[in-house]
């Protein structure tokens, strides 16, 4: 009996709590909105669409970055003791990076600027060109030239 009474009171207590909470939140946000004029900004359709677009782009960028890093780590781990150029560039994770195309070049540039490596070959395959006609160029030098060219 006592239990039923207590449980019978629960919805009322929760409802009251929610009402007070909502009222408090509404007041709090009203205060912020009136101070920041946020409502008028969001009600602008152009701005609102822009925010949606930015959020979508940021999300896509995060997913792209995460996928790139996953493929990069797998490729580095699984090819580090290989000498066969063919095996290195035909590795599925390397191919996945190349297939991502120009969208991932900023990430590649960051990586090869930090640590020059054969990852530069992804740029060769994405752009289907060498950065230099010098046959004797080292990987390290090629990385520097790519960074200079694409960061300019």
């Amino acid at each position, binding site marked *: 009996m006592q239990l039923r009474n207590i449980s019978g009171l629960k919805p009322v207590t929760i409802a009251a709590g929610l009402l007070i909470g909502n009222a408090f939140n509404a007041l709090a946000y009203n205060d912020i909105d009136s101070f920041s004029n946020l409502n008028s900004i969001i009600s602008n359709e152009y701005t609102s669409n822009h925010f949606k677009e930015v959020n979508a782009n940021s999300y896509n960028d995060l997913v792209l970055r995460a996928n790139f890093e996953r493929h990069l780590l797998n490729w580095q781990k699984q090819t580090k*003791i290989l000498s066969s150029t063919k095996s*290195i560039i035909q590795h599925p994770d390397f191919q996945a990076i190349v297939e991502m195309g120009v969208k991932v070049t900023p990430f590649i540039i960051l990586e090869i600027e930090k640590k020059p490596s054969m990852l530069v070959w992804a740029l060769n395959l994405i752009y289907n060109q060498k950065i230099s006609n010098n*046959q*004797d160029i080292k990987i390290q030098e090629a990385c520097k030239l790519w960074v200079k060219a694409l960061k300019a």
Partner: protein
Amino acid sequence: MGEGIKGIRREIIELFPKLAGDVNFNKTSPEDENYNCIAWAYSRKDRIMWPGGEEEKVLDGFHFWPDGVEDSTDIKSFIEAFGLIGYEICDSWEHEIGFQKVALYILNDECTHASRELSNGIWSSKLGKWYDIQHGSPYTIENETYGTVHCFLKRVFP
């Protein structure tokens, strides 16, 4: 620092388990992607040496494969390439004063790796894009990626 070196040794041994019992095993260089194992065995540190294909022609870096040697991963092409700088097939990996030796490795009928003997009888390998290491015998870097030693070559020490 000390833990770092231990960590790297452990990482190398995980990939090359036979090195665990090799008292001469040592990492001898930092990572360097400007050269690979074949170039290192060929006594060059300025190029990537591997039989090429069409796709490789667009890649930056100094790619080298000797003119006149077939662009093939067949072991015969590698023996021929080393032959151009004086190496000939020999029977044993054991140290012979005045001679330098190379070991070629094979997996699934394709050459995978080369190691080179130093003047003191210790062996040296560049592990792909990774580190240079020293090892006491060519057999201690046999593993599931490099396969097994296929043959030995020797030349008069230059």
